[in-house]
């Protein structure tokens, strides 16, 4: 067992974990952060994407111990908690960018990182930026629209 100190969605946690434990399993099984989901076992689908120190990471590709001393934001900590949605969440709702919604947490977290790097992305930029997140329901069209809509909203605010 190895001790980790990690801040997740604003709360500090100290836990002993097996060194082999993946960050996504730590989030889901130890912290109950089940908003972050597992869609594959090869790092392809991106459903488990979270932000670590502000950068998007597939949490299946990081060990929990690698998050030691870092700050993790999951889909559950994305909005301020005052009931209002984060602009990316709001845009996904407005543009019907989700159907079953399983890929959505990871997709939104990736989109946030994309917009951090590129606040005004073209359609091609968005497609490139979310390439690591698979969606089976939407054909991506409305996801692309949502990310561009969120970009406009975030520039305004």
């Amino acid at each position, binding site marked *: 067992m190895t001790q980790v100190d990690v801040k997740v969605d604003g709360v500090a946690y100290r836990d002993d974990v097996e060194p082999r434990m993946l960050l996504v399993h730590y989030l889901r099984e130890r912290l109950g952060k089940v908003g972050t989901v597992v869609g*594959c076992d090869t790092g392809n689908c991106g459903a488990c994407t979270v932000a670590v120190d502000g950068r998007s990471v597939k949490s299946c590709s990081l060990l929990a111990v690698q998050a030691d001393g870092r700050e993790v934001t999951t889909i559950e900590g994305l909005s301020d908690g005052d009931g209002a949605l984060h602009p990316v969440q709001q845009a996904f709702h407005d543009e019907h960018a989700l159907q079953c919604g399983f890929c959505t947490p990871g997709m939104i977290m990736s989109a946030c990182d994309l917009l951090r790097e590129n606040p005004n992305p073209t359609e091609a930029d968005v497609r490139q930026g979310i390439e690591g997140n698979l969606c089976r329901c939407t*054909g991506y069209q409305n996801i692309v629209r949502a990310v561009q809509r969120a970009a406009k909203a975030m520039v305004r605010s």
Partner: protein
Amino acid sequence: MTATAERPAEIGQARKRKEDARLVTGRTMWTDNLTLPGMLHMAILRSPVAHARITSIDVSGARQRPGVIAAFSGQDFKDVQGSIPCVWPVTEDTVVPNHPSIAVDQVNHVGEAVAAVVARSKAEAQDALEAIDVDYEPLAPILDMEAALADDAPRVHPELSSNKSYTWAFESGAAGSGRPIEDVLREAEVTVTRRFRQQRIIPAFMEPRSTVVLPEGDGVTVWSSTQIPHVLRTLMSLSLGIPEQKIRVIAPDVGGGFGGKLQVTPEEFLTTLVARRVGKPVKYTESRSESMMSCHHGRDQIQDITITATQDGRLTGLDVHILSDMGAYARLITPGIPILGAFMFNGIYKFDAYRFVCDGVFTTKTPTDAVRGAGRPEATFAIERIVDELAAELGMDPMQLRRKNWISHDEFPFTTVTGITYDSGNYEAATDRALELIQWDELKKEQAERRARHDTVQLGLGISTFSELCGWAPSRLLGALRYAGGGWEQATVRVLPTGKVEVVTGTSPHGQGNETTWSQIVADRVGVPFEDVEVLHGDTQTSPRGWDTYGSRSAAVGAVAVSNAALRVVEKAKRVAAHLLEASEDDIEFADGKFSVRGSPGAEKTIQELAFEAFAAHDMPEGVEPNLDAEATYDPVALSFPHGTHLCAVDVDTETGRTTIRKYVCVDDVGTVINPLIVDGQVHGGVAHGIAQALYEEAVFDDDGNLTTGTLVDYLVPSALDLPSFTTDRTVSPATTNPLGVKGVGETGAIAATPAVVNAVVDALRPFGVTDVRMPCTPERVWRAVQGGSE
């Protein structure tokens, strides 16, 4: 129906979805999120070989591992596990082999369960699998359908006399729906024959399947990532012998299905068997790799198609012979999948004669079953591809050939050569609109120029003018097809004392947005605000009756039941209103949630007021029970026939073989639209799925029967970079067979898109003498086709 100036009709509005709030914030109830007190975790050891006898199996080592509560092999359940049910033996003599959920003495495909470990944690259960010893005595893998049908072929199931499950046949002369096919074939002026290969694909829903079973006394509560909680409950009772009233099935939030979760699975049965044996709640969640090999696959047909026509391009006959790879077993509706296409190969065209013969074949591969479209993509692909090939043979423009032969809008209702009647449609309108949107004539000019200058990147233009049949009903028809189930749907509308409304539906959505669309319908019918309607589904305790969600049936069947139940609420409320307002029922007018007396201004009651009056029941009319609730069961009179025209322009690099979709235009006609946002979303997703089959996806097995595309690394579910932006539009030909005028939409895209794309690829390469490219049209296959002229 209650549209007023104050409140526009909900039906037809692009309402944003009620479902989204929990989904965009990560507050979703996926089955794998569930943790029950004392819950244990199960891991499954799966066969690494395609076909073998299990000569010995020893699970005792696993039992010694830390945290392990129990370990089981098939021997532990051989007398109680029943068989995974098949509800669609398509002929009187369809062979349905016994299908254990955990193998007892033989394995018949890679990935079949052979042992299970239950432990305190998932990690401990998985670790312990390596301590299980299994000895396999290899049998010959059976991978090729034609070889499997040879007299001396080794058999998948040695106890059976062959690898054939059934032969299902239809012939228009015998059926009386057209001329005898042999006559038409003999008289044909032009005959084109092709063999098309429908590759095997994997549903690849994003949420891996998960099941939690809580044993309680004689019964169980089962949470499962399924499309079919109601069907699962009944079949679990019939197969495992648990009394039906002791089974509660809950499908919480379900992360996509695409037919892949239209199944009663070995994993659901095994989790149930194990949970009951250990007497504790047990969770099983598959890994993606397990999902790829153990969830049923789809398509996988060899299609031998002959089309005949007159010299001037009038279609006369269509002769279809199918080999359908069922894989190792007949799962829920495996034998019926190709039969869903049997009435569709003729597409939107008029033929004199038609024959369809299908052999269902067992192989040592993962079983096949429904995947989005299920039988109809295969049929639509074949007809739309061969019409293009016939056009090339005749030297005719492929669109002109279609126009000459399709059912014209003034001919509906039209009974086709299969004997099925299409109720409504307008192929001309959809096609003209699509041609205009894609700027077809300009693309044609560009294509001619690029061909003339031998551009290394050639432009291909593909057409798919499709119709499909969906809305899996009516029950009488399903019975005639030997399908064991029904096709009706049920809904209950309950008006609560405060005037809020609960809608109970027997459909089981997993991305389709029924909570939103059903709310729109009820808001219109009952005259309450959209926000006041709550839709309950996916739990056999709260929603006891229904046939669930598949086959594009939710709107075409389920929505009509909801609408009918809501209309009954209004009828009931009208009686209460008449009584309280001391008026004749005939004088009560209903609009926008208000019941008023004709000619008596001010004498009115709102639906909310009546709800409380009925609840208090101080003054109810004679014979009216004290509530406004109503239920309805709707069994349609016919299938649903959406149609559309999809056009695709591709750039094909003849030097690298790479295909890039430049434009994709689809004009669909799904009848009356309840929510255009949701309909467009369904079309987008369906088209993406169809393009994926055309260009990217294939489940590949090696010579030993190993699935070599067993992860998302090598099975290419397209990303945002692999797909174009789609242009969607609609024509509206309301269904005449249901009161809402709605048609199914969930599968249209997947049905229409595949031939549009492949026709475009072949069109690009026709100057090179190419007449077909096998799917998926990978760069390698396209490049080889260019080099070789044809495959």
